[in-house]
């Protein structure tokens, strides 16, 4: 069809079709907006935001634990003050309950999105390779899913142990400090916690980088490299900081 055969007389239209001879006349327009709520990227964004909540929480939690090195009085006072934060505007322990609700909601969102993405990934390659090599993937990145399941199991154990006092390997004293130290003096409890911190470190190593990438904050090579360093530093600081306490007990630095 020659431009003259199109029969449009308006100046704008003429301008448009006059370009025809220089190339293909594109008349397709983009289809209407589609929903993006349940897309893989939306699920990943949910995981990134909830993951950020966890990173913030474990940083504070790790900081609090280090009070164990200042002895029973300092540690127990810190535990007590946590419950008095924002009182009398909140009831005793109120802020902790708010934190717990936020953490449980984040956990539900994080795990639900993870399992949904896991299922989609499994469906995306039903016929597996006879031979498949990992060229660049780190151990941390390849163990995110099962490592996450292990961490979930650990969180349940940890709550039964130190929050609800259902599991009492080191006796059941009133003082949080005595409870902590008494537990870690049982070697297998210390081992469980140290292994869990290894898993946590690996999860944060890839997870924190992945969070920054999913949030779209790494869109140039410099920031991409920085975000890898952020993952590594956070993993070492958080997992290392947590591990100091059971190690301190095992080495006899932190004692009853």
């Amino acid at each position, binding site marked *: 069809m020659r431009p003259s055969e199109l029969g449009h007389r308006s100046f704008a239209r003429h*301008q*448009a079709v*006059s*370009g025809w001879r*220089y*190339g293909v006349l*594109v*008349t*397709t*327009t*983009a*289809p*209407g*907006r*589609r*929903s*993006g*709520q349940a*897309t*893989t*990227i*939306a*699920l*990943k*964004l949910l995981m990134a935001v909830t993951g950020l909540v966890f990173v913030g929480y474990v940083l504070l939690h790790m900081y609090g634990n280090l009070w164990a090195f200042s002895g029973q009085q300092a540690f127990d006072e810190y535990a007590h003050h946590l419950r008095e934060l924002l009182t009398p505007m909140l009831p005793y322990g109120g802020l902790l309950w708010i934190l717990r609700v936020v953490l449980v909601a984040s956990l539900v969102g994080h795990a639900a999105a993870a399992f949904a*993405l896991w299922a*989609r*990934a499994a*469906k*995306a*390659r*039903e*016929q*597996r*390779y*006879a*031979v*498949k*090599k*990992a*060229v*660049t*993937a*780190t151990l941390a*990145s*390849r163990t995110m899913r099962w490592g996450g399941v292990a961490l979930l199991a650990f969180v349940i154990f940890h709550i039964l142990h130190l929050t609800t006092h259902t599991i009492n390997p080191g006796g059941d004293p009133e003082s949080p400090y005595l409870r902590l130290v008494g537990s870690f003096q049982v070697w297998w409890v210390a081992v469980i916690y140290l292994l869990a911190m290894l898993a946590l470190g690996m999860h944060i190593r*890839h997870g924190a*980088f*992945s969070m920054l*990438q*999913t*949030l*779209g*904050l*790494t*869109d*140039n*090579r410099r*920031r*991409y490299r920085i975000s890898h360093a952020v993952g590594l530093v956070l993993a070492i600081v958080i997992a290392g900081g947590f591990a100091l306490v059971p190690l301190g007990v095992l080495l006899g630095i932190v004692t009853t």
Partner: protein
Amino acid sequence: MNLTLKIWRQPNGSAAGEMVTYPITDVSEDMSFLEMLDVLNERLTAEGQEPVAFDSDCREGICGMCGLMINGVAHGPEVTTTCQLHMRSFSDGDVVTIEPWRASGFPVLRDLAVDRSAFDRIIDAGGYVSVNTGAAPDAHASPVPKENADRAFDAATCISCGACVAACPNGSASLFLGAKITHLAELPQGQAERYTRVLNMVHQHDLEGFGGCTNIGECTAVCPKEIPQDVIATLNKDMRHALWHRV
């Protein structure tokens, strides 16, 4: 050199497939990988057997048509396309396992050839600029900073071969998607439809049965055009913007 090839044979998409072993002798190290397969096919044809079906077109590394999983690595041991891989990357006595791209979004047509029209449908969903471009504008009519132009060009080198999907443990096409999104997002022409584009393309990507990205980086490591992983960050950023602002 003499090699043992283990090749996936499957007569059509609905039939069951299996790995079949073929010894091959007197392979020159100057042969390309596809020429080595051509030699095998000549022999199979002469013996009255079905030749191995595989895709290839330009054989100079620019069209994106070829692509084989070689010893568990997309496009084999060198960072290039399968057609630009040469037999000098192998040694005498090697066992070479050759499989098609494995992804639900890339169904096997026959042997090593897969249907990659899913990529075409993702592009159809928004990977273009839908305005009449008119006559070629003056070069300085809409200035593009060098940084953006370079990044757009780097992203535009994607040849849609599908190696990223093949290498991804999640069968995700995020690197392909990220390259296409970044290519247009860095240029002024791409701005008008920027956020509807990302929604529609991501939606189509998921519909085609590709998985989600876990930022592992296997895609970038095998990409023959070395598209960096940060294009996926741009994809995520645009998607976040589109979702947040309910584009």
